[in-house]
Structures are given as C-alpha cells and as structure tokens.
C-alpha cells in the first residue's frame, strides 16, 4: 500500500480554480435561489458549460471513450467546488455514481455519450441507499426482456436521459440501461428537502432495457458505484462546510452589535475555531477517501466510512451554525444559507447516514458490538 497523498496536486489545484471561476461567474447564490422554485430546478446551461468548457462530465471516463481519464481525486475536487456553490447540476448522480457503475460494467458506448455532450445518466436507486445494501428487487425483468417496477427518491433523475437500472430477472440480478423517454418509462418529480438536488420516482412498465451486467458482476458493480458515491460525497460535504464557515466568518467580521464587531465576541470565536478544526479534519478524511478510491486501496471501505461519518455530520453542523450565527437573516428565504442547510441535511441521509457509516466501522476495523 502506497502512502496516501493527502495534499492537492498542482493539476488538482488548477482544476479547482477553473471550476471555481466558472461557478463564480455563472452560479451566484441569488441565481440558484431564483431557479429553485422555477419549472427547471436544474441549471442545464451551467451543466453544459461545465461539460464543454471543463470536460466535467467525462472526467472519470477513460480517454479511449472520449473522457479525460482523470482519477477520482480530481472528481472529488470538482465536488468540493460544486458543494461550495450548492450548484444545481447532476454531477454527482451522472458523472460520479452512474459513471462509476458504467465504468465497472465496461460500458464504453454510454460512457462516450456522457463524456461527449453531458448526457445525464443516473443509477436508479433511492438516494439514501448506503454501500453494502442488498441488491434491490423493486424492478423485475420480464420474460420478454422488458423491465417493470418502481424506484423512489432517485437523485438527479429529472434531467436524466439514461437510467442504469438494477433489476432482477429469472437468472438473477443485473444492471440494465433504459432510456428515460422510452415507452413505459416514467420519471416523476418529488418535493425534495434539498432544493438544489431534486429527487424523482422512476416507474417502469414493460420498458425496454439493455443488459450491462449480469448475475456474476451486477452486485459488485452496484457496490462499487455506491462506495464511490459515498466516498466522494464527502468532498461535496467538505465544500458545503467550507462555504458555511467562510460565509459566517465574513458576516461576523462585518456585522456590529453592542458597539462591537460580532466576530470579536469570544463565544462565537471559539465555536468557529472548533468548526474550523473539524473542517480541517474533514479535508484530510475526504482526501484520504478520494485517494483510496482512486488507487483501489485495500483500505477503501474504511476510508469511505470514516470520510462519510465525519464529513456528513460536519456539513450539517456547519450549515446549522451558519444559520444560527446569521441570526434572523439566516432564517429568511432570501439569504442563501438555507440552500446549504437543505443540501447538507439531504447529503447526510444520502448513501448512508453518518451513524450508518460509523456503525459500519465495527465490522471493518474489528470493533464488534455486544454479544447477543
């Protein structure tokens, strides 16, 4: 096992600043806020820019399929920045989770489509599904090869053109590629807690599907996709926490009460110091998880559990402190803080809660619970 590299490489820092520049220009908080009640909650214009200008959709996709062939370490850096902007784009669902599934299937053709024009694909599982879950049996493969069933609370499914569907046929589990506008496929929006990453229910009634993985590999492919999603989500959570901390610090440096800058009050300073401390830890943990996933380290499962358990809780705490320390201002719809609170809370449930991941450590590092 190589020593993990926990710092950002120069290339990673360059990627970060490109993404940040683009988001600063095209994804200001008020635009996100304005969009989130409109008919199109996803910012597909922004998505197109990320795809065409930065190749974000194909970052993980090998060069032979038209992607950038970058590692998950770079993908994680993009997620940090998207988290910092609460950007309403389907990056996590498409360029991380679905791409990981397609990669593990060796499905070059759909991958090329994703990389080329930012076609959105999603893995149809509830967003709350943690790694290590049993293979879902909500969709069955009928004798005619079509798929039927229902999957609830799928993240980023609204703008998806391709669905990667775990389904169970007569010969066992498989992963199937279904076009979202195929006859018999239906994607219905749900009212989501997170205003910047929406959920939808996917219903299939005899929809045609192409098998990408069969009984031998489907479960492993699904696990790899979920593990990748969980591990990299930690970087998004880090980005959320950093925005919340920075925004709060900036507010407290400006706002005056009782004749003093609020940020000079020691109780607030100490709370922010503690929050900063845990953010520093989150950066180390998220980097370690990205590095482990990128290098297929034998320690990946531990790294992901540690990162999710720490970063999932931290992002929520940072967003909650952000609201509290903005006082009444933070409670208003007009201030973007709530967008981060809602994303942080939804992210906390996504791909396993912090409690789930912490409990998973029991088996991973040999700390078993009480007997009986």
């Amino acid at each position, binding site marked *: 096992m190589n020593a993990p590299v926990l710092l950002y490489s120069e290339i990673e820092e360059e990627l970060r600043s490109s993404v940040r520049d683009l988001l600063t220009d095209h994804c200001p908080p008020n635009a996100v806020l304005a969009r989130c009640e409109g008919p199109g909650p996803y910012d597909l214009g922004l998505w197109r820019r990320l795809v065409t200008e930065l190749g974000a959709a194909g970052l993980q996709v090998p060069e032979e399929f038209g992607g950038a062939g970058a590692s998950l370490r770079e993908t994680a850096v993009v997620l940090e920045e998207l988290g910092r902007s609460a950007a309403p784009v389907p990056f996590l669902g498409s360029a991380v989770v679905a791409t990981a599934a397609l990669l593990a299937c060796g499905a070059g053709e759909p991958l090329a489509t994703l990389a080329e024009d930012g076609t959105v694909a999603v893995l149809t599982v509830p967003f709350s599904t943690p790694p290590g879950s049993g293979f879902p049996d909500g969709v069955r493969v009928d004798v005619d090869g079509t798929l039927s069933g229902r999957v609830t609370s799928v993240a980023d499914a609204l703008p998806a053109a391709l669905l990667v569907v775990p389904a169970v046929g007569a010969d066992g589990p498989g992963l199937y590629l279904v076009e979202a506008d195929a006859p018999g496929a239906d994607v219905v929006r749900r*009212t989501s807690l997170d205003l910047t990453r929406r959920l939808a229910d996917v219903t299939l009634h005899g929809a045609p599907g192409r098998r990408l993985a069969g009984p031998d590999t489907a479960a492993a492919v699904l696990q790899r996709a979920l593990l990748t999603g969980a591990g990299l989500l930690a970087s998004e959570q880090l980005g959320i926490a950093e925005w919340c901390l920075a925004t709060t610090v900036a507010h407290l440096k400006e706002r005056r009460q009782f004749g003093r800058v609020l940020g000079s009050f020691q109780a607030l300073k100490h709370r922010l110091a503690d929050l900063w401390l845990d953010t520093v830890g989150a950066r180390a943990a998220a980097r370690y998880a990205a590095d482990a996933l990128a290098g297929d380290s034998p320690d990946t499962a531990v790294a992901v559990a540690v990162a999710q358990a720490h970063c999932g809780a931290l992002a929520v705490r940072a967003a909650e402190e952000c609201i509290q320390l903005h006082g009444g*201002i933070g409670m*208003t719809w007009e201030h973007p803080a709530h967008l981060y609170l809602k994303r942080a809370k939804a992210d906390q449930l996504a791909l396993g809660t912090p409690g789930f991941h912490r*409990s998973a450590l029991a088996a991973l590092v040999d700390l078993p619970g009480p007997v009986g």
Partner: protein
Amino acid sequence: MSSDLRARVEALLAAHDPATTGRPDFLRARFDAGLAWVHFPVGLGGLGAPRAHQALVDAELAAAGAPDNDPRRIGIGLGMAAPTILRYGTEEQKSRFLRPLWTGEEVWCQLFSEPGAGSDLAALATRAVRDGDDWVVDGQKVWTSSAHTARWAILLARTDPDVPKHQGITYFICDMTDPGVEVRPLRQITGEAEFNEVFLTGVRIPDALRLGAVGEGWRVAQTTLNNERVAIGGQAVPREGGMIGVVAQTWRRRPELRTHELHQRLLKGWLDAEVIRLTGERLRQQLALGQPGPEGAAMKLAFARLAQELSGLEVELLGEEGLAYDDWTMTRPQIVDFTGREAGYRYLRAKGNSIEGGTSEILRNIIAERVLGLPAEPRTDKDLPWKELPR
C-alpha cells in the same frame, strides 16, 4: 376560588348563555364582568383578584361551553401590549384599547426588531420626529408576526439620536391602517411567511398615543419584554408532550427504521425531554408559590436545543422519507404548528427557536450575568450618543 368569584361566573353564564350568545357578545360581557383577566383592575376586564384565580375562572367557563378569546391568535396583544398599556397607559388609552384587545376584535402586533439592530434592540434606527401634536415616523421593522392582520402595533422609535442609545427611545401605539404603513410578508426557510417586514414612511402618530414619557421607551419596553419571557415555559407539559412524542411514536410504529445508533440518540433525547419537563414542572411549582426563578430563560434555551436535536434526529430516522418535504408553497400561518406538518418542516422551523424572542447566545449572557453574577463584557456603546455609534 372565592364564592364571590364563583357567583360572578354563574351570573355571567346566566345572563349570557353560551349556547345562544354570539362569540363577540359573550366575550364583551365577560370582559365587562371583570372575568377577562381577574388580576386587572375593575372596569378594565378585571376584579383586582389574585392572578392565580384566572385558571379557575377559565376552567369553569370552558366547562360551561363558553367560547375563549383564542389566546394563541392574539398572544402579542395579551402577553405584551396589555401589561404595558396597563402599567404605562393613560386612562383614555386603557379604556380605549384593552377591551377590544382582549376580545380579539382588534389584533395587535409588535414593531420592535429592525434589520440593522438584531439582538442589540436598543440600537434601533426608526426615527420619530415631533410635528405639532403628532409624531412622524420613518423606518423599517422586521420579524413582525400578525402585522398583516393587526389593527394596532406597539412601536419603539428613536426620538433623540444625540443621547446614548437607551435614552433616546420612545414607545408609541401605532395605527396599522395609516397609509404610511406597508406590510410585506417575510418568507422563511420553511417556505412559509409567518412574519412580516413593515416599512414606515411618514406615519403620523398623535402624541396622545405615546406610551410613557418621551425618551423613556426603553424602560417601558422592559415591561413588554419581561412579560414575553414569563409567558414561555409556564405551562405544565405531560410526559412525551411536544416533539419527543412525535419521534417516540414514529419509533414505536416503525421497527424497521431502528438502529442502535439512532436508539442511543433517541434515548438521550427522551431523557433530555423528560429533564426539561421536570424542570418546567419545578418552575411551575415555584411560580405557584409566587417565587419566579431565573429558570425561564433556561427553559427557552433548553427547549431550543432539544427541539433542534430531536427534529434533526427525526429526519435521519426517516431515512429516504427524510429526503422529502411536504410543501414549499408560501403560506401565511397564523400560529406555529410543529406537529401538524412533516419532519422536514419541523427540522427547519426549529432552527428559529434559538433565534426568535432572544437568541440562545443572548440568553446565555443573561444567565451568566444575572444568575451567576459574572461581569459583563467591556462595553463601549453605553455612553456614546446613538448617532456616533460605529455601524
């Protein structure tokens, strides 16, 4: 209850049978019988009786099927405006305002908070300038509940910017139908708009609607604010009352959601809820003996912490369902109903518990200074003229 009081209740019921009397008529009659708030003076809805007797009157009338004045809807009038008018109002003010306030025919709101002041309420910038027999008021207020239904407001405005901030404030009664009053809904993170922003532009207030002396507004406001604080945490709560009951019921009903991690947190939440309940019960027993303790501030602080803890836990417990939200439509609720909506709403709304009516940070300052006797922080703003304060 004294026999006299019981006789008055019976006389009221005899003269105004709740079954056949209209609600407003009954409430007016009750006010005139001195049974509205028995500790108020005779002629102002009371009998000068001990405050503790009120609960008995209420119970007796409720048992007889009499309507109440919907106290949650008119809480600001009852809890804040009325005690202040009683203490500082002129005779004309008292007889003009208290009756319709109590019957609910005239709703009141409170124009204290400002966007630029926050916890430092005394820094408020809304100006009132004397003009003949009137005052002309300009400024902006915020977090005003009921402003869109209110007929009257209690208002703090700065009448002298050249003296230190606590000294230049005057307390007014403001007519919400004045054309210079503009009320805009203030939407919250829950999607709804419980509160309002209120823009005051050239609002004219006759000097006769001033409450207390010019420049004495801060002192007058203490009566208002102390009564706000007393109102919190005074009610007896049954075990598992409030948010813990909702979470515990979900836990019992849905064994498939349980994990050991959530179990430990639930037990901790249940424990905390029970300790807070017992603390409130102890406070109630003290109040019944006429020994109000400083635990009122403690109760608010503890309640906010618990509500946030439990509502966060509930969302996690629900897992996939916790990712959903019931409704983002902007509605205008008249009261906060924590149990009438879904977990996501409770989670978001509970964030306000540690901000509204005194932030948890301010309450901790109050406890540290007034209860523990720790010294105040160095202050530079107390003696400076308001207009020279750094902003």
